[in-house]
């Protein structure tokens, strides 16, 4: 007598793609997040295109100064006769796509100043927050005291001090964004770590005899990633905000690459004779920051709904 082999229906484990799609559908579930994502992607695409092609070279004065939008220059020209659309597109690069290293070689690393600044803040914030939250005691006291001191600095003052202390450069702005972003992320990670460390799987890991750093980085951090990533998205927005402000104040990213903040600052001087010039770069900064904010906001709402 033969027994039919038992078959168990094992649902195929979801592939990477389908999981990524699940995450994406979370975005599309929220209309706000979708709108935000579309705006951000629009700028991202414009930036990537500008790496290979812009309507005209962004730094050369090819046209009459201060032209209104017309069929040749879709967004007009600036006070030096440069095409505003080309400059606007290229302005995305320093913020989102490339960071220039100091030195004569003109080397760049992929990933914009805002992105690297936030990555730096994520790194230091996570390390400090995890140590404060998981280890507690003196670690917590000392780390939080130092971070409180950092928070007490108004961000703009910190930026001014750091940027006057060092030479103008992309890496200095990255550093400034990292320093100002670290306390906030550390606080968030700490509160998440305080919550997660009471869970059973942490107890299990401790019983297994795992080292504190294993528990912090392999057990706690992956489970805290949702809110941290949403916060990081918001912070990229703040970073672009800050870069724009620094550029506007004349102490931001160094020339010659176009930077939206300094474009506004340049155009502002001609505001009474040619008021159009300030509008495109202003709208660019505002729309990108608003896009990131909408995206983060929508995501937070969706994630919150998930957790309920």
């Amino acid at each position: 007598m033969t027994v039919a082999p038992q078959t168990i229906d094992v649902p195929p484990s979801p592939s990477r793609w389908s999981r990524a799609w699940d995450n994406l559908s979370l975005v599309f579930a929220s209309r706000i997040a979708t709108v935000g994502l579309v705006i951000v992607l629009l700028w991202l695409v414009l930036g990537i295109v500008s790496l290979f092609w812009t309507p005209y070279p962004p730094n050369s004065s090819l046209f009459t100064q201060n032209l209104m939008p017309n069929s040749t220059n879709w967004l007009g020209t600036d006070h030096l006769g440069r095409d505003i659309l080309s400059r606007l597109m290229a302005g995305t690069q320093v913020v989102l796509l490339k960071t220039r290293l100091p030195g004569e070689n003109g080397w760049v690393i992929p990933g914009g100043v805002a992105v690297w600044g936030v990555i730096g803040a994520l790194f230091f914030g996570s390390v400090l927050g995890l140590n404060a939250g998981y280890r507690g005691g003196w670690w917590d006291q000392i780390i939080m005291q130092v971070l409180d001191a950092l928070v007490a600095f108004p961000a703009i003052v910190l930026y001014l001090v750091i940027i006057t202390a060092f030479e103008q450069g992309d890496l200095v702005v990255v550093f400034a964004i990292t320093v100002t972003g670290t306390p906030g992320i550390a606080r968030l990670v700490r509160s998440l770590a305080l919550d997660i460390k009471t869970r059973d799987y942490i107890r299990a890991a401790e019983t297994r005899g795992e080292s504190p750093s294993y528990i912090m980085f392999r057990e706690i951090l992956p489970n805290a990633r949702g809110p941290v990533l949403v916060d990081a998205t918001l912070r990229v927005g703040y970073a672009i905000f800050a870069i724009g402000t620094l550029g506007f104040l004349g102490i931001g990213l160094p020339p010659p690459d176009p930077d939206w903040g300094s474009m506004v600052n340049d155009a502002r001087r001609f505001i009474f004779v040619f008021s159009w010039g300030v509008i495109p770069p202003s709208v660019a900064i505002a729309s990108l920051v608003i896009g990131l904010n909408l995206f983060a906001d929508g995501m937070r709402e969706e994630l919150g709904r998930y957790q309920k």
Partner: protein
Amino acid sequence: MARFIVRSLISAVLTMLIVSAALFFFLEVGSGDVTVKILGIESTPEQRASYRTQLGLNAPAWQRYLDWLAGSDWRAERAVGLPLVTVRNESTDEAEWWAERDGELVRWTMRDGELYQLTRQADGSSVESPADVAWQEGENGASYFWGVDADNNAVMWMRGAGETVWVRTKAGFRKEGDGPREYIPLRKGLLRFDAGKSLQTGRPVSVTLWPRVRNTLILAGLAFLIVMPLAVFLGVIAGINEGTWIDRVISIGGLALTATPEFVTGIFLILIFGVWWRVFPAVAIFTSPNAIFEKPMLLVLPVMTLTAVELGYVARMTRASMVEVMEAPYIRTAAIKGMPRRRIVMRHALRNALLAPITIIMLHVNWLIGGVVVVEAIFGYPGLGSYIYSAAIFGDPNAVEAAAMLLVIIAVATRLIGDAAYMLLNPRIRYS
């Protein structure tokens, strides 16, 4: 409660100490050679070196940090051997340092290798006479004397050393064979409200800072008075109508306003009201120190910009808090027992909903300060923000440190007040 207050006070003091040290050493590391900026690039290295000495920049960093924090007169008194006192100069309104000897106030000055004594008269003027001072024997046949000069420094004059030094006076540089070798700029230190002299203007920081602080307080205070009721009103409206189009408009509008950088908002307001319609002045240039009171119109656009930036944030906070409270069981109970909606909102929801915004607004002062710096830079408004901005650009450590510390103190103090207010208003919270 008392324990909580003591603990947060200690924490605040610690915070301030860490911040002051960090600030000082940050500027120490980077600000470059400030003497180049003051003297210009035409100055020779010798002149710069002498001027560094004259500014007291050759002392070790920790020493200058202590001077900055607690004053240098302790150290100078030990060197001079006489008590040093400050007297207010009636004509400049600034403090002057004098050494007190036998009931007289004296200073010294050196011309062509000769030391003269200035004795202060009751009317503020001084009488010059050849100095009768005890020169002390120094190394290799030189002799030296510690005194106070007319520029508020404790100075070590030396004769017979045969070295030449450059001395910077109001008229320019002078080369001297015998002369001042070491300087201790006299100051009372930040703890005693004296932040030293601005290297950019040569005037005491504490004198020039206050008018700026007043201007900024007027600007920020006006914006605050407009923002608070308006934002709370909009937030409450959005909160009780959660999910409706009113809520959407207020929420997304608020988000857009918050996410738009201050300078963009400012530029657009200038464009609309200053350039196209020409109803308000587009810049806030002060023609006299009291220009705000003479021409209040100058304030309109700066206040409007600051309001626009703050409005969205506070409104969103109030809305979130209101939404949370409206979902609470006791609100449902009130609704079920038939209480009119208006009364529920006014009597039960509002008080609880306003708790969170109050603390968050207090924590938000840092953000407000950032806004103030940018707004003042856009409009050329002479306040604390533009002061710190121009000082930072110049690399004037005394001015940057003083202004930044003031902002930090404001930020820390408001946070303390926020914490305390939250505790008083919310009896459920207990701090250990």
